[in-house]
């Protein structure tokens, strides 16, 4: 997930972006997004560690696809239809096997606004998401479309926001032909609709934004719930994990520990402020510099996290 800088902050980069987009259009079809095959048949495109903006054309989240003998499953589609098309081009470059499934790990626009590029395929793939994704996306889609227009200059019709039709409320398996995916719907954590995608018995696992590496974690669900989900993830014995933002890693438990340390710092700082009767705005200012060393995008997300944590924790018993 990624808010953006205001448009005027990006203006000097607009020309460059226009040139890039022009190059994409001139090629007739979108240029393929660069991907790495991190395990056999498992491809990952690593998004930039930036906010969703004109300058990066919405390419800020990790995207991927898994290739079986019968089917490809795409996992997250990027922050714009154009980016989705570039991901589709990467799939086409890797394999002629048809895309049967498009899985969204959660509602945020940098992971899902590329869906439209896959909806046009014949036969149309099935779109898969958490059982609570449709409600959340319904409520947010108008704002995401406005933000896409405001931040990236891309118009997207209401029908261009593609909703899942396969809904997962606990676990769900998809057979790609020789490769089995296990999808797991989590209780409210980063958002209220986080879905993980595990490949085979030993991974890799796509964690969506349940794990951030480098990029500051963003609370848009429930801080305490997220900590609980992380406890459950820590029990998984898997070789490789792909965070929603940052590098895929075999040391993903270390990345989890770093994320936990940040979230615990937010929890404890905000709790203490609430106990002391400090109002929300003053709390956010007082903690604006706390526990953020070595993270990227602190200015964009830390205050926001403190705000969300305060609104959640003030209801603790």
């Amino acid at each position, binding site marked *: 997930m990624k808010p953006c800088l*205001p448009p005027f902050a990006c203006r000097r980069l607009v020309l460059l972006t226009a040139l890039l987009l022009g190059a994409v259009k001139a090629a007739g079809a979108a240029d393929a997004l660069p991907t790495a095959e991190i395990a056999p048949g498992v491809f990952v495109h690593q998004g930039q560690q930036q906010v969703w903006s004109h300058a990066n054309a919405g390419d800020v989240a990790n995207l991927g696809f898994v290739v079986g003998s019968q089917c490809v499953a795409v996992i997250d589609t990027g922050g714009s239809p154009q980016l989705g098309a570039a991901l589709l081009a990467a799939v086409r470059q890797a394999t002629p096997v048809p895309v049967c499934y498009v899985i969204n790990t959660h509602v945020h626009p940098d992971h899902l606004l590329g869906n439209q590029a896959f909806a046009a395929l014949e036969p149309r793939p099935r779109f898969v998401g958490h059982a609570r994704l449709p409600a959340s996306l319904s*409520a947010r889609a108008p*704002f*995401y479309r406005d933000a896409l227009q405001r*931040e990236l200059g891309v118009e997207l019709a209401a029908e261009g926001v593609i909703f899942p039709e396969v809904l997962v409320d606990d676990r769900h398996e998809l057979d790609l032909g020789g490769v089995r995916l296990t999808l797991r719907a989590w209780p409210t954590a980063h958002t209220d609709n986080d879905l993980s995608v595990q490949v085979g018995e030993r991974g890799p696992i796509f964690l969506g934004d349940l794990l951030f590496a480098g990029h500051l974690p963003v609370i848009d669900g429930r801080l305490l719930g997220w900590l609980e989900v992380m406890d459950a993830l820590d029990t998984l014995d898997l070789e490789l994990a792909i965070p929603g933002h940052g590098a895929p890693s075999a040391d993903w438990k270390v990345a989890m520990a770093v994320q936990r340390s940040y979230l615990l710092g937010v929890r404890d700082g905000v709790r203490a402020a609430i106990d002391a009767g400090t109002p929300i705005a003053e709390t956010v200012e007082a903690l604006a510099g706390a526990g953020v060393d070595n993270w990227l995008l602190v200015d964009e997300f830390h205050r*926001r996290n403190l705000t969300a944590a305060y*609104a959640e924790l*003030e*209801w603790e018993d």
Partner: protein
Amino acid sequence: MNTLRSLLLAAALALGASGASLAQQPNADDPEASTSWQQVRNAMFPGRSITSPAEAIISIEAPDRAQDAAIVPVSIRTHVEQRAERYIEKVYLVIDNNPSPVGAVFHFTPASGRADIETRVRVDAYTHVRAIAQMNDGELFMATRFVKASGGCSAPPGKDMTAAMASLGKMRFRVDGDIEAGKPALAQLMISHPNNSGLAMDQLTRLYTPAYFVRRVQVSYAGEPVLSADVDFSISENPNFRFYFLPRGEGELKAEVIDTNDLKFETVLSVAPK
């Protein structure tokens, strides 16, 4: 529907259900240039003069950029003693570019002690946020702040809709520190409520979810009204108000809340000044 709500609705309709155009970037430097404000002004205060800025009477604090569009803290401070002969009777909170710009009308009395109010609002777009004080003689004073909408991922709807419904109607009062008779005391009222706008469409049924929000809050101390508010879905999920009251002797602080389904919630707190 009372007159006020008719006015609010008229103002909302005048602007169209989707609020002001996002393409038309509002001018941060000129609060009067806002077309939605001109419409609200004509509907709510026709032909009346409004003094602005009016720092000796009223000021407003809000972040320059909405960090989280669903929870934008707004703090309105007043600088007038609430005396029987001269006091602030109402404070209007207006968020120009929200679908329903008049987010709240707070009513105060001399028993309020001070007409300060702090709450959290949703901000849909780049917008001026205004606090307009109406004195008991009808005179109007206004403070404004410009708030930039937050980025792409932050949206005004809440974070966990299922959880919001599960704890519906839970309320909390909080009064910190020692209470002294005759000295304005700060209180906080928290209301667990999804407070949704009803502007989201269910993709399966193609129906809009009905708006469901807290519409009236009434707080009394020892039977005397200290704060009442007509509010709507511009107020964040789990509406939260910090305000003052003037304690005199032992008494109960009592809050009554009514939502758009006419559900009523109540909470009380005993207060014993030193």
